[in-house]
């Protein structure tokens, strides 16, 4: 497969009055052409900061990309100037945000907001650009697009607004689409519609998608590969089936156990005790250690990344080649 994006050892920090927050530390992954990957994690784990960093949308100050490279098309996005970035943003890489009502301009009609990207990037006259806007709305399945382009965002429902956002993101046929919690604000039935749409556009336009979410269920149906983030680091990454069938990291295992399965009989719900760490003063070793039921003495040192079969990589001392344990058997005992 052809690689189109590779993130290498990305570090993002935020300088606040209380001290330096290490929002993302040492994150590396690659994205192939036409692939859908998922980034999962709880709030504050750095998943949204990672995606904003790819778009170079980290507000600075207080934020700062303090290390690493983001290679797209042979260019390092971290060192590009604003002008060069503008020709990539929206055109080559575009993004859908969580809350469509905040991300759309309330005083402009939907049509104008859609036409703007054609007028800016392709220098089309307004009339032609509006015609293209109608086509886009048709593509994302909005009924009566000719009338809808004259409406304002408040005249639409949440699902419809998110479709407009998707239309906007896809306007220039970008090669990468970053969807940052695209359905968190929506109902399950609308969520199903939107996910179906993203999948359809992925196959038809072969756009690569980075799907960021906290919902393990959404990722399961969509992604070929899943990255699990915790406290600013990728703790586990593997092909979707592999990750769900045999999680290696205790955090992933805990997450999977704390979601009830609607298709299975009721079983006791196990929870992960404690809460995510404070990133102002992260634990020196493994960040998950205080909540981990398998914590050992060595966990006070930061674990290295171990890559196993099927490209299943995990950052945990349990899977270290020198470890006497195997997570699979430990987890089975933990379930019993």
């Amino acid at each position, binding site marked *: 497969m052809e690689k189109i994006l590779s993130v290498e050892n990305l570090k993002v920090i935020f300088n606040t009055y209380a001290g330096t927050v290490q929002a993302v530390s040492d994150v590396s992954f690659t994205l192939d052409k036409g692939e859908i990957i998922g980034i999962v994690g*709880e*709030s504050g784990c750095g998943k949204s900061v990672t995606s904003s960093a790819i778009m170079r949308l980290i507000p600075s100050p207080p934020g700062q990309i303090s290390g690493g490279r983001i290679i797209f098309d042979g260019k390092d996005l971290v060192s590009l100037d604003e002008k060069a970035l503008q020709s990539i943003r929206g055109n080559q890489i575009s993004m859908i945000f969580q809350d469509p009502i905040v991300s759309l301009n309330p005083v402009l009609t939907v049509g104008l907001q859609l036409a703007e990207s054609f007028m800016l990037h392709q220098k089309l006259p307004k009339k032609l650009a509006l015609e293209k806007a109608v086509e886009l709305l048709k593509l994302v399945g909005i*009924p009566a697009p000719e009338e809808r382009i004259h409406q304002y965002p408040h005249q639409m*429902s*949440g*699902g*419809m607004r998110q479709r407009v956002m998707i239309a906007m993101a896809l306007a220039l046929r970008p090669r990468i689409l970053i969807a940052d919690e695209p359905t968190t604000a929506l*109902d*399950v*039935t*609308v*969520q*199903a*519609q939107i*996910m*179906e749409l993203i999948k359809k556009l992925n196959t038809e336009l072969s756009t690569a998608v980075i799907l960021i979410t*906290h*919902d*393990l*269920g*959404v990722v*399961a*149906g969509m992604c070929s590969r899943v990255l699990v983030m915790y406290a600013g680091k990728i703790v586990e990454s593997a092909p*979707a*089936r592999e990750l*769900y*069938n045999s999680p290696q990291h205790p955090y992933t295992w*805990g*997450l*999977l156990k*704390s*979601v*009830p*399965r*609607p*298709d299975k*009989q*009721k079983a006791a*719900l*196990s*929870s*992960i*005790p404690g*809460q*995510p760490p404070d990133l102002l003063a992260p634990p020196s070793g493994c960040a998950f250690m205080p909540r981990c039921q398998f914590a050992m003495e060595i966990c006070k040192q930061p674990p290295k990344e171990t890559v196993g079969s099927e490209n299943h990589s995990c950052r945990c001392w349990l899977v270290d080649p020198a470890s006497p344990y195997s997570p699979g058997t430990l987890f089975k005992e933990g379930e019993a």
Partner: protein
Amino acid sequence: MSDVLINVQNLSKYFTASRNFWGNPTSFVRAVENVSFQVYKGETLGIVGETGCGKSTVGRTIVGLYKPTKGTVSCAGEDIHTAIHGPNAMTMRRKLQMIFQDPYASLNPRMTVGDIVGEPLAIHKITSGKDRQSRVYGLLKQVGLNPEHASRFPHEFSGGQRQRIGIARALAVNPEFIVCDEPISALDVSIQAQVVNLLEELQSEYGLTYLFIAHDLSMVRHISTRVAVMYLGALVEIAAADELYKNPQHPYTKALLSAIPIADPAAEAKRQRIILTGDVPSPINPPSGCKFRTRCRFAMAKCAEMAPELITGANNHTIACHLVK
């Protein structure tokens, strides 16, 4: 199990949407229309549905935060809305408590946790002085917090801990019935399970009865004894949790259940999704007859003419649909 604790009969709640020049209402949001159900003692009744289907309105009307437009709600045979406007209002209010969705908005930022949890004890004149303090400490311990937390303020706590404070406050007056209005939707996945487990423990310890309102369908199945499905202000189906999820009858319930994402790629690949088209109609001007007919794949002429009534079939499975005989 068979004692009815809460009996909701033909409940309707309209909100005024617009008024004319003279201030008289001209149109209404029909948030809840003609809803009837019972909650049995000791059970958890889950209510699910999409945004705006009226599930929160039902919960708030039951505890008396809203006055019903039509219909009655009674608790152990006594009409709630007559009682809370009468001389014995406090006895009725003590029986019914509520846990709110947003743990950030539902706690007063200027009160200490001890004051927040102790306030219901003061209002209902249950305990005072040293007794109240030890009762507050006891409540905090019960919900998994430390007694030292009593002197702190809400902003010092995380979302999950705040929700525990809200639970302690609801428990303070020894209620019989608690309405949990989306108590976990603002929390992270790993914290949700903690709060749900706490609610289950408290239920078995005190024999509490819950009305659990949520849009997370998998969590509702997990916690509920029975589940009710609402669409656009109407109750469309109600059955035991396992029965409803295994054997949904109403076309809307089927679509809703098929839309739940499952955290397993193999199961996801196998399933057939029913994708609903279009949007939920406006509750100001709902469709005639069956409210779901505009999005229903099986809509017939009859569906536009008359609203289907709730019919109880085998396994106590109640459905409102013309397709089901």
